[in-house]
Structure formats: C-alpha cells, structure tokens
C-alpha cells in the first residue's frame, strides 16, 4: 500500500521496521510464553530512543510528528503487542506530563522518560472502575504539602517494571492525577500473571495505604485530573492502540498469505480456494481502511485540530474490531496450526481481543461516535434553520 509519505515519515518507518525485525519480532513468542520482557531488552529499546520518540527534542526525545510516530507504532504492533503496550503506557504518561505538567515537572521528568532511564505507567483502572473512570474510588486525602493516597489499582500495564505511576484518584476538589514513584512508602506492587493477551505486558496490582505524595508530584489542579490530564493520556493511548492494531493486521495478513501459498489441500494451495481468497481480500481491505483512518487521525493531530480527538476514537474503534476479525480469520486459514502456542497468528488472536477492551471498550467508542453523528445532524439542522430564517427575512 503506497502511503505517499514525506521523507521524514518514510525514514521513521524504515528505522522502526529494521529495529522491530531485528530486536523485537524474534523474541515476541518468548515474551508471550514467559510473560515478561527482560530488563536488558527494555534497556535496548531505551538505548535506541524508542521510549521517547514522541517527546520533544527540547527534553531529549525524538520529536517525531504524529504521522511518523504512528507509523513507528504500527511496526512495533506488527512485531509484538506487549512491547507496543510498553510504548503506549510510557507515552500516555509522558504526553500528559508534556501537555499539563508545570515547567519544573517537565524538567524533572521528561528527560529521564525520553531516555528511558525511568519507565512510567498509567494507574487509572480499579477493580470496580474501568470504562467509567469517574467512578474511581482511590482516595487522595489532602495533607500538609501534598496528598495521602489509599485504594487499589488493577491490571496496570508494565506495573511490574515501571519506576513511576500516574495515578488517578478522587480528592475533595474532584479527580486528581499524581505521580507516584515505585519506591513510595505505602505502595505495594503485586504481579498479575496469566492474562489472555499481551501476556508480556507485566500486569500488576497496586495497593496504596497511607501513601504520601508531595504537592510537586500532583499533575494539574485537582478537579481536572480526568477531564484534561486523563483525557490527554487516553487520547494518546487510543492513537497508539489504533496503530498497533494496524500492525497486528499486517502481521496476520503476511502470515496468512504466506501460509495460503504453501499449504496444499485437495491438490491445490489454499490460495487457490475461493473461500480462503475471500478471507484474504477482507483482511486486506480492512487493513487498508484501518490504516487510512489512522493516517487521517495523525494528520489532524499534526494540525492540532480539535476533531483529532474524535477521529482518533473512530480509528481505534474500527482498527480494534478489524484486528480481531483479521486475527480470527488468520487462525482459520492456518487451521490446527493456528491454534498452536508459539504461532504468531495464535498470539495475535489473543492480543487482538485485548485491543477491543483497552483504552475504551468497543461499546464506549460506539457511544462517543454516536454522539458525533448526532452532533453533526444537529449542526446540519441548525444551519438549515438559519438559512430558512435568512431567506424569510429578506
């Protein structure tokens, strides 16, 4: 698929492709099987700057534009959704910091986050609050020069490795976001093994008991922790998950096409059976549609246009569903082989299911996208009414 990219985007994509083929894809099955990413592999990612590609060069990051960054994330999604998840959660925190952090917070955190010297993770989800984050019950009690946290966070991606957590809690003044170090007294981190997909993403449960967080680690004013800080982080997460889904689809298509050409049944390669060709054509079309939506969202983000928020939601919703369908079809094309542990399409199938849930479930996006359609209709109706009034007045 020719994307008519400029030189910067083409170069970023090529660098990511080379790195993923050499240093990510060969280990993806191992991360999945062992449910961990070795520290030295994370250090290799950091050493080559992959953890700070979208952070401004002012803070030592790669300063990639949204399009180049998205194409980079697609490559990581093609290679390994667990590594892509690491880039996502680290990026969600860094982008919220870059957008809403004080100058002192940006100076303190962004350089080590850009270098990958310190890892960040997002701690929003709770046992009883995931899609509806306004219902988080982790409590931030105002204390002298800060807050004291109490509560639980669940399914925290890379919680087993992260050095810092961006925690969403409720305070008397409303939702508040706080940066909490792994070493904070009163924070207990418990690994959560055995998730269905992205099994290398080292999930953890966090328990806060009288965990003091100083004021200088509070990100933005209490009250806006969810509607602006949280929304910024989630918007970034949706963008990267959408691109990651495109990567999953690309992997599924490549493996499926290769298998269909090699495997013979009834005296002919699978590729000559019409029902298999239909699966391949649907996969190809959906992949291109998902990538086009991601490209559109990236271009709106580059223009800092407010519609980028909803178009990112549209891209994530479509890409997650399309990746799930593509992965299911890829397993179908592979038959029994596709059900074997260690097979790329088997891992993609489990990973794709997770994509329909994280950073907004399919159903949450459906509600938001329906809002968008109804707003458009209301706007058309308002404009038509205004035009009628104008004509009537002349």
């Amino acid at each position: 698929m020719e994307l008519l990219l400029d030189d910067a985007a083409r170069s970023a994509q090529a660098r990511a492709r080379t790195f993923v083929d050499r240093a990510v894809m060969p280990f993806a099955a191992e991360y999945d099987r062992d449910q961990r990413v070795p520290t030295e592999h994370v250090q290799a990612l950091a050493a080559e700057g992959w953890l700070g590609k979208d952070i401004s060069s002012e803070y030592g990051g790669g300063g990639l534009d949204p399009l180049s960054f998205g194409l980079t994330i697609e490559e990581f999604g093609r290679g390994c959704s667990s590594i892509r998840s690491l880039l996502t959660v680290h990026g969600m925190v860094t982008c919220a910091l870059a957008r809403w952090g004080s100058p002192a917070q940006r100076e303190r955190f962004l350089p080590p986050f850009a270098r990958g010297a310190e890892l960040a993770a997002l701690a929003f989800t709770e046992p009883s609050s995931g899609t509806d984050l306004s219902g988080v019950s982790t409590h931030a009690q105002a204390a002298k020069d800060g807050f004291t946290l109490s509560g639980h966070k669940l399914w925290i991606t890379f919680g087993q490795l992260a050095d810092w957590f961006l925690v969403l809690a409720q305070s008397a003044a409303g939702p508040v976001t706080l940066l909490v170090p792994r070493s904070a007294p009163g924070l207990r981190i418990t690994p959560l093994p055995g998730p269905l997909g992205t099994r290398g993403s080292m999930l953890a449960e966090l328990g806060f008991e009288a965990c003091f967080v100083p004021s200088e680690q509070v990100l933005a004013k209490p009250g806006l922790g969810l509607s602006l800080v949280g929304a910024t982080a989630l918007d970034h997460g949706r963008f990267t998950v959408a691109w990651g889904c495109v990567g999953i689809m690309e992997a599924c298509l490549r493996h499926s096409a290769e298998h269909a050409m090699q495997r013979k049944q009834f005296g002919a390669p699978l590729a000559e059976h019409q029902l298999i060709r239909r699966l391949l054509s649907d996969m190809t079309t959906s992949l291109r549609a998902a990538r086009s939506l991601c490209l559109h969202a990236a271009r709106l983000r580059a223009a800092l246009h407010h519609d980028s928020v909803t178009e990112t939601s549209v891209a994530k919703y479509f890409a997650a569903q399309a990746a799930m369908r593509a992965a299911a079809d890829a397993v179908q094309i592979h038959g029994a082989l596709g059900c074997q542990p260690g097979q790329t399409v088997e891992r993609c199938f489990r990973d794709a299911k997770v994509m329909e849930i994280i950073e907004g479930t399919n159903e949450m996006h459906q509600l938001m996208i329906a809002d968008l359609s109804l707003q458009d209709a209301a706007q058309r109706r308002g404009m038509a009414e205004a035009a009628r009034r104008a004509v009537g007045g002349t």
Partner: protein
Amino acid sequence: MSTDIKPTIHGFLARFFPGYQLKDDDDIFSLGFVNSLFALKLVMFLESEFKIQVAQEDLDIAHFRSVSAMDHFVERKRA
C-alpha cells in the same frame, strides 16, 4: 484568527447542545450534554481558534464554565 470571541465560541458549542439555545452565562458542564472528550476538544478549539496556549496555571474549570468566562479568559490570554 477570530476576533469576535463570543459568536465564535457559540458556533463551536452549538453542535454539542442540540435543540438548546445556549446563553452566555449558562454553565456548559452542568447542562448534561457533553461527554468525556468534550473538555479536551474545547481546550484544543480555544487554542487553535484564538492562537493562545492553555497552560497548567490556566487549568481552572471556572475559565471554561460558560461562554462569558471563556470570552474573558481568551481576552486575558491575548492581552
């Protein structure tokens, strides 16, 4: 860049409040029309439309609560 602040903000907000004639001093967050993405979109709109930068120190819900409040906020940022 828009110079007529209130009408421009009303134009942006109209699509979020179908069938409702929004008044300058209405509390837009208490009317029950907006979803969780609205605040981020609103800030991005104000920044791009009026060429201002909403920074951490500006993050007070009072600045964005009504058309009048946003009008004052934009005027102050542009001063």
